[in-house]
């Protein structure tokens, strides 16, 4: 019973914290751009405002458009159960699997892209098409992040991966390469600057926003919340995979461990914002090389790991 309570509590916590991480990111970006910027809690206010607004649907759209916001949020909640967060996760008897986590992220993108095409506008199709390209390139890169530990552990379950990460012989080098790759993957997966620009509605550059263009009111609130949740989950996955303390320093007393995890998430989020502020948007067709670099880095790390381990 206590396990279930922990499981539900951590899923609820990431859902509640996701907008705060988003607020922090926006604040850091504002400071980097010499603006004052909105308060840390602004995403909560925005979501609350949207929730009270009217709901509009584009003419000719089907139930896919209507169901997608709820569906993607549900999928990401399920993904949060497939990932070590504050405690090793739920449901009991199952400790989460990396491939399943990646599969759920793919399912979320699939649903959102379908909704983009369902609007029957050029913008929706444009967003879906570009997003599909980014997704196809990012999926191997995301897999590659776990590759060294997969090779060391011979499995894809989170506990096996994290145990391998803790005891690997060449861990320092692997983590160095891995974090560099993870930065690229996280920027791509969360739709941030060199890949996509979350702050613009300019049709020449937008990817993710173009798919959401027709959503309004509570539906927009749900997809926005889903996007923030996904951002936090990607950060958590990077922390689990690549930081030596994974889901919490084991030397600390168990009570304090969740605090280190929270600190890690916010720290990685801040890193993301800084990296985004320092880079300029890449041309769309330069992306394969950019994301491919991440895959290559991770593959190099994996080869080192295999070489060192055998």
């Amino acid at each position, binding site marked *: 019973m206590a396990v279930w309570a922990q499981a539900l509590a951590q899923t609820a916590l990431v859902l509640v914290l996701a907008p705060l991480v988003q607020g922090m990111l926006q604040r850091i970006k504002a400071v980097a751009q010499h603006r004052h910027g909105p308060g840390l809690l602004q995403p909560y206010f925005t979501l609350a405002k949207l929730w009270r607004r*009217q*709901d*509009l*649907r*584009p*003419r000719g*759209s*089907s*139930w*896919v458009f209507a*169901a997608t916001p709820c569906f993607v949020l549900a*999928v990401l*909640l*399920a993904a949060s*159960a497939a990932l070590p967060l504050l405690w090793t996760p739920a*449901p009991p*008897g*199952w*400790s989460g*699997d990396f491939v*399943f986590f990646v*599969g*759920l992220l793919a399912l979320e993108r*699939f649903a959102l892209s*379908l909704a*983009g*095409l*369902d609007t*029957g*506008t*050029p*913008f*929706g*199709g444009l967003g*879906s*098409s570009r997003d*599909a*390209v980014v*997704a*196809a390139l990012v*999926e*191997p890169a995301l*897999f*590659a992040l776990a*590759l060294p530990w*997969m*090779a060391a552990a*011979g*499995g*894809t*379950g989170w*506990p*096996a991966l994290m145990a391998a990460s803790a005891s690997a012989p060449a861990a320092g080098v692997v983590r160095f390469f891995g974090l560099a790759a993870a930065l690229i993957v996280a920027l791509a997966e969360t739709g941030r600057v060199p890949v996509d620009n979350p702050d613009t509605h300019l049709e020449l550059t937008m990817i993710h926003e173009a798919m959401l263009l027709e959503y309004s009111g509570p539906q927009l609130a749900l997809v926005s919340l889903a996007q923030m949740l996904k951002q936090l989950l990607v950060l958590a996955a990077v922390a689990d995979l690549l930081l030596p303390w994974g889901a919490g320093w084991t030397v600390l007393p168990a009570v304090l461990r969740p605090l280190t995890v929270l600190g890690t998430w916010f720290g990685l989020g801040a890193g993301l914002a800084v990296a985004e502020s320092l880079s300029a948007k890449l041309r769309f*067709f330069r992306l394969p090389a950019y994301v491919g670099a991440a*895959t290559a880095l991770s*593959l190099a790390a994996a*080869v080192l790991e*295999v*070489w060192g381990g*055998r």
Partner: protein
Amino acid sequence: MILAGLVGLVSYVLAACWGALRPGGRWGVWAVATGGLGFAAVAVGALAGARVQVWLRLGPPGFDLRFGITPLAAVFVLLISGLGILASVYGRAYVAHLSPEKQRGVQGFVPLFLLSMTLVAFAGNVVAFLVAWEAMSLTSYALVVTDRERPEVVRAGYVYLLMTHIGAVCLTAAMLLLTNATGSMAFAEWAKAAPTLAVGLRSAVFLLMLLGFGSKAALVPLHVWLPRAHPVAPSHVSALMSGVMLKVAVYGMVLFLFQVLGPGPLWWGLTVLGLGLVSALLGVLYALMERDLKRLLAYSSVENIGVVTIGLGVALIAQQARLPVVAAVALVAALYHAVNHAIAKTALFLDAGALQFAGAGRNLDAMGGLLTRLPWTGGSLLAASAAIAALPPFNGFVSEWLTYQALVRLAGRAGVGLALAGLIGVLVLALTAGLVAACFLKVGGVALLGRPRSGGAAQAEEVPAAMHVPVVILAGLALALGLLPGLVVGPLAAVAAAALHLDGGGTPWTHVLSLALPWGGVHLAALAPAAFALVSALAILAAVAVGRRARPAPQVRDPWACGGQIGPEGQYSATAYAKPFRQVFGAVYRPVRSVRVRTAVHPFFLTQVEYEGGITHVFDRYGYGPLLAAFVSLARWGRGLQSGSLRLYLGYLLITLVLLLVFVR
């Protein structure tokens, strides 16, 4: 069991007669159903442990027809029977748009096609196997050329016939080699004798088998017939060919590469793995570029057979490296993926046929908005797309998950070189998965969603129940096999263990398999709690959605078009959707384009712009093209011998006679 088998045999033959005489009648469907159930009963009996063998003595000793059933064959017989019944139910309604004469042909040949595939699975010696294999090829050829007044259909049928016979020649040669070396024609005897044979001979047999089954399974570069033959056949025939016949080739590979030949040198496994990786990646890349729905599905079959072959390759490598558990996981992955692809691809081809039947055609660029017009067909098409794109909670995800497990376990246990092969395999599979998702997003999004792009799509109506109920059943099956993988993995693990000659040491092999996967507790069924998490999250969100019902109903407005009006032609088409991929993977596609601008009076006054774009199919262009040209020039040269002069022919006779006297004394 013999009785059930006889019932199956007689029912299929009766179904063929009824189909040929009364193509629209329902007796043919009942007979196929009886036959399918009869053979399915045999298969279930075999999976439960019963063994039956039947000999039919037909001539000199050794030339008897031997049939039997193994658990491995039983898996495929179940697929053939189940999918055959559903396709026949669909087929009776579907053929209504053909002329009566063609209806007779299709309805008469489909049961024979099913019967011949079943007999391939039952075959226990060379004669039985080759007869059934040839019958399978010929009946399917007859079905492919149903629309024989169209020249491109005849040509597609010809290419199919040619490729399938090149494969059959290789198979015959391989089997004759084995017969000669072991002195027996029975597969069971071969399995006993094969490990003692010389490596060179076994490698020759391996290569011939790979060519033979590879051409039937449509592995790259032997895939060229598939995208030609599948689109032109009636849709339920395409479904059976792609969903079932390709699996019969997979059955052949598992039977001969594992059960009969046994462990071989390392390069066997590496070759198979390499072929699988190339097929998976190229298959999906070509599928992504297609606008013709059925051609797209055909290329997607190449991709999925590639994924199955990756599993087979890893199993071969692991078998050689003495990693029995890895081999078992890999073989289970391959078999499970074969089952999943059979279900999902049958559903997709039947849906494609339904869309065509409803008047929406096959061109994705002319579709749109079909989900609201054909809710059942469209919904099942979406579900099957998600299944084939390996998205959880559908079945395709579970088998890809298993394939990843096999590759990762190989990387974790083998030496540095093999570990690298496993890691690259993981990356290629991940890239393939991402591309498949994009490809089926295109299918689902462009065909079913948005607004209709043509009059045909705007007026399409839902097809009759006989055509959409089978597909909905298949979509449900795809979901069920994804949520409850344990149901299938258990029996498949036993089958795989038997094919690999593994012995669980008294304990059931599934148990051994589950202990071997690291993190303790439940295993190959490990995804069941995950599915549970997904379902419960969905339930919570459904509650949110219901809660929102209390609000004012959403209002429908025109979508934002920068302040203007925009017609359905302004939507992204399938071609436009795939355009960035064409650019990103330009090295593979070698795109060609030509733009012709016509002007009047002055270059500023355009009257017409013609745009033509396409891609180069590398294997057609640089592989088969030169080969064909070489053959043609050889034939031209050979024509010189046929001068028509009687004296010259008499001279040939004399030379032949002298040569024969010299060599054959």
